[in-house]
């Protein structure tokens, strides 16, 4: 590995011909996720040409354009469908989807559960900021019950999704959760999510002060990071905790790790068998 500092690494991976400034607000956690992603790819020594970033729509969707990989900014909720086509077409590519909570869990919920079920070899990063940020702060399926948003001015009545249980229920190969406060852990999780076979899902809690925090009693972005620090506990510790100790705590870490081969691996295995059979039949 090269002996370079964090910022220098990032500069190697940003597009030099892309006009800045970027679209993200001050205090947004998305930049930390993108930084982690770059450092993970760098530490794993994956060539830039082999990395495909497939992003959905929303604040998270805009991350793709800044990095010097193969990048595709798709439609709202559908990143995984494009990713499936790409991975099946060329399994040697590392396909990483960046999606938001509204993106992956609401409009793209169907694609998410089916990508998990068919175990396509794609890394799904779900950047959960509990809100629709780009469109102006409307409720998402991850907006906690009781909090307020532009479409729930009197308080959110609906329950929110637990992304991890959803992924586990749908049969995802690898399910993990991290936060932008716990950056070193996030990078470890991201490296695993990129290298493990099959469908790997990593939820990242990333605060949005502009659209969520300031309407829900967070004084500033720093408050939200402090909240993450206080609330998140390693899953190992969480499991040992008694029900009453758990309260609002959110477990982070690895929840599922099956290591099953991805769909593309099984498909091309099948193809090999079929072609061998054909050849044998022709040989007769």
């Amino acid at each position, binding site marked *: 590995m090269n002996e370079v500092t964090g910022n220098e690494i990032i500069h190697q991976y940003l597009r030099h011909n892309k006009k800045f400034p970027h679209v993200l607000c001050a205090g947004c956690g998305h930049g930390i996720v993108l930084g982690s992603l770059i450092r993970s790819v760098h530490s794993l020594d994956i060539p830039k040409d082999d990395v495909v970033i497939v992003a959905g729509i929303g604040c998270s969707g805009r991350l793709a354009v800044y990095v010097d990989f193969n990048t595709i900014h798709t439609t709202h909720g559908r990143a995984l469908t494009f990713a499936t*086509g790409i991975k*099946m077409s060329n399994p040697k590519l590392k396909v990483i989807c960046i999606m938001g909570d509204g993106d992956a869990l609401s409009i793209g919920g169907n694609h998410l559960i*089916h990508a998990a079920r068919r175990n396509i070899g794609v890394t799904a990063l779900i950047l959960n900021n509990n809100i629709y940020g780009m469109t102006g702060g409307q409720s998402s399926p991850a907006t906690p019950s009781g909090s307020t948003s532009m479409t729930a001015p009197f308080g959110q009545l609906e329950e929110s999704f637990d992304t991890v249980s959803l992924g586990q229920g749908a049969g995802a190969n690898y399910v993990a959760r991290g936060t932008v406060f716990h950056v070193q852990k996030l990078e470890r999780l991201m490296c695993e999510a990129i290298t493990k076979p099959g469908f790997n899902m990593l939820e990242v809690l990333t605060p949005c002060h502009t659209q969520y925090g300031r309407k829900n009693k967070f004084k500033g972005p720093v408050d939200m990071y402090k909240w993450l620090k206080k609330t998140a506990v390693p899953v190992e510790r969480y499991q040992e905790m008694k029900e009453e100790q758990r309260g609002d705590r959110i477990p982070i870490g690895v929840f599922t790790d099956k290591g099953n081969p991805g769909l593309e691996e099984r498909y091309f295995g099948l193809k090999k068998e079929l072609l061998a059979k054909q050849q044998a039949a022709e040989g007769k």
Partner: protein
Amino acid sequence: MARRKKKQEIFALGNEAVVEGALIAGCTFYGGYPITPSSEIMEIMASRLPAHEDGVFVQMEDEIASMGAVIGASLAGRKAMTATSGPGFSLMQEHLGYACMAEAPCVLVNVMRGGPSTGLPTSPAQGDVLQARWGTHGDHPIIVLSAADVQECLEMTIKAFNMAEKYRTPVILLIDEITAHTREKIELPNPGDYEIHSRVVPSMPPEWYKPYEETVRGVPPMPPIGSGYRFHVTGLTHDRNGYPTSRPDEVDELMQRMHRKIDQFFYDIQLTEETTCDDADVVVVAYGSVARSAEFAVQQARESGVKAGLLKLQTLFPYPRRAMEKLLAHARTLVVPEMNMGQISREVKRVNMGRASVRTINRVDGQIITPSEILKVIMQG
């Protein structure tokens, strides 16, 4: 179905012929969701592609996902297609627009059944013609082809792939339930019988490459992702580098080029077939299975002394204006039979501009327009 190798003749469904055509054209990716009456295309692809040297088949969770996967495969360098019908076609409109914007070549076969909504799943119709042209939002160019019989299903599928690759655009092939579900004897072409086109890939070094650059043809070269050309693809309006822009000059350049690349190649794209049109007083303008009824009716009209002709539209959009202009020099009457309430007849009237009298025959009861219905109108002059 029954195959005979020597003669290369098969007795096949229209849907089977689509698959044969696609494989001849070099299709190596199918992503789809089953729906009547297009399902045979998917079923046959499911058995052919995995056993094909380089074929990939995926069954997706819905039609939105199908088109997403097809575009993904296209960006990864494959010739990709999907097939659907009515309700599924509505769901595909979202990504059809993305394919236009990202200029991702792909082929979408829509086997038309009765609508609106779930409609008549096993009956023919031609109600999706204007949806094919204008179904996805925004001002976009698109190519829409049609096929009238089983042999044409094979040929037009090959042409659809060729046009998609040449012009970096989605191409829609509209067939109807009758054509899809009719078995006929067709000839399989030998290798080399058809010209097969593939997209132009860049020859310049990656650092010089601009994915959406203005070129003479209006069609920028397109490398498969992962081949060393790293660039950005987006559904947002973009500049030559593919980066989002809202600068009016850059927006206008993109929109103009997207339209120009299709419009300027009208002679290659706008396909028609004429039958006894040279001296015709009455010309039937028809497409799809209705063109077969029309052919029978025109033949009967000729036998009883009426100078009738048939202009069969193989390309529906961009509308083959020039082929019709030529006929308007002598045709007094245009007859437009369609299994809808009048969709292509709008185009006919637009080009006609009041010169000939236009008579429409419209049928929306899930039944094909018969030769006798058309003959009756031809004989009225």
